[in-house]
């Protein structure tokens, strides 16, 4: 990767990004949305409950959900234009004739895309201090939650970069990245739902819950919504959706990080103008 700050693409990209007013608008809007939701929620709690203490966990669920939704929308979009944007601006070919290797181009693009996402995440961290104001949340839970966000950002970033390399136009690559992202976030949940019903229908052994079947547990462990709710210890979807294994988040992290690496390698391969798989 080379030295981070002397990496030409990264410094160019940061310069480009932080000189446009669009960037400050994005950060501002993002913080505004997060803040508005929290204040709205605090009003609701204040209205229905006299005792505010201990309701920090409810606030955390709302905030995490909002955050996660924003990551799902912003991260793929940021990355999905990274390579196709260069192609559309007709700067990609020039870039490919320099000494920057396709692998380095892909990695730098990935880094700058997720860097911006992390900036958003860190900028909104002070909002989480409200949660401690209300109490009821363990710090370890927050750490796990941020780890969870990080894995998601990396995955959506790699997915966006891959689509951006694979598909010529930014608009179509963004839609494709959203589509594939949707499959992992919602699609795996739907598959799990059908499999669960299928199993409870055919197997009458009542001592077994669906999560006793490894395959279901695995699918559950790669569905970000279920994993997220498990981290927050909220069973919004009923007992049967709770994963009992302690290692679900390791499965989740490993699965998405490996997938991200594969996507980035594929992207670097596709980007290579003259492909010669048998050498180098």
């Amino acid at each position: 990767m080379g030295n981070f700050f002397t990496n030409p693409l990264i410094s160019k990209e940061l310069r480009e990004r932080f000189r446009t007013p669009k960037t400050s608008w994005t950060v501002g809007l993002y913080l505004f949305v997060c803040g508005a939701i929290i204040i709205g929620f605090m009003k609701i709690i204040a209205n229905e409950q006299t005792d505010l203490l201990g309701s920090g966990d409810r606030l955390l669920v709302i905030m995490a959900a909002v955050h996660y939704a924003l990551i799902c929308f912003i991260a793929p979009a940021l990355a999905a234009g990274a390579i196709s944007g260069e192609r559309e601006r007709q700067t990609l070919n020039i870039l490919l004739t320099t000494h920057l290797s396709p692998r380095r181009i892909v990695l730098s693009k990935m880094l700058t895309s997720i860097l911006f996402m992390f900036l958003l995440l860190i900028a909104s961290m002070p909002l989480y201090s409200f949660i401690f104001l209300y109490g009821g949340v363990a710090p370890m839970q927050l750490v796990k939650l941020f780890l969870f966000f990080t894995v998601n950002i990396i995955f959506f970033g790699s997915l966006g970069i891959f689509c951006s390399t694979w598909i010529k136009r930014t608009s179509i690559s963004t839609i494709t990245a959203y589509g594939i992202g949707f499959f992992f976030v919602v699609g795996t949940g739907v598959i799990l739902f059908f499999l669960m019903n299928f199993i409870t229908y055919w197997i009458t052994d009542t001592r077994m819950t669906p999560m006793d079947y490894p395959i279901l547990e695995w699918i559950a462990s790669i569905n970000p919504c279920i994993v997220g709710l498990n981290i927050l210890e909220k069973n919004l979807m009923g007992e049967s959706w709770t994963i009992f294994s302690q290692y679900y988040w390791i499965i989740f992290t490993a699965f998405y990080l490996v997938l991200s690496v594969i996507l980035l390698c594929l992207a670097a391969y596709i980007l290579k103008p003259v492909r010669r798989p048998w050498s180098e």
Partner: protein
Amino acid sequence: MIQTHDLTKRYGKFEALNSVNLSIEKGKVYGFIGPNGAGKTTTMMILSTLLSASSGKAYVGGYDVEKEPKDVRHILGYMPDFFGVYDNLKATEYLDFYASAYNIPQKNRSALIADLLELVNLSNKADSYVDHLSRGMKQRLGLARCLVHSPEVLILDEPASGLDPRARIEMREILKKLQGLGKTILISSHILPELAELCDEIGVIEKGRLIASGSVPEVSVDTRGISIMQVKVIGREEVAEQILSSDPLVRRVDNKGNHFRFHYIGSPEEKVYLLQKLIAAEVPVTHFADSQENLEDVFLAITEGVGN
């Protein structure tokens, strides 16, 4: 410096390049001429390691473009026919970015960039944002960009297209400077006069085939035995036109009042006979000569009948 052997490129069934054999010596400026869609860009992209050929070989500086692309990129500067610049970057930052992309040490860059901007007459625009420059300036900045790693070979795809006459002249002056620096340059154009005085050799490409290659006079006379002639008279224009039009060796008479241009496919002896005929008819001829200053004519003559 640049060589291709039977270079062929197919897009599906369509043959964009058909057995092109180029050979350009070190320090020469080679003009690559052909109408739109002839295959100039395709050839240049293969040479710049951006496209793989369907068959055939291509070498730049002795390196195989397919097997040793990194070595080729070291010695090659490529300027595409259309290219964009980044928003929110100043001219110096733009060049600095590419200099760092070519691993040029930071401490050498500012002097290098100043020199390059000087070379392309953009010193006064050093701190302007590149997306605000005019097309001619962007084009010159692009040329400076492909010089950052001081490549020996330059491949310039239609560097003057879309420029106004003044910008074109400026571009030509810069190219002459580069020629003076001993760079080997492959430059393409679909407009010939642009390249006329600049090129040591030209190659004419049409429908993916290199149909002529060599020095300008060689190409014009030798390849097809066609020469372009100019005749000027100061009277009896109708008689002159009638004689020219009825001569079986004369083609495509272009009558501009008292100034005729035409293709002549005869031998020098037959040319003498043509002149004698004009004089015998008492046409006051002031000029009777081969025209070589206009490459457009050469091009028309050479491509005549190709592909029909």
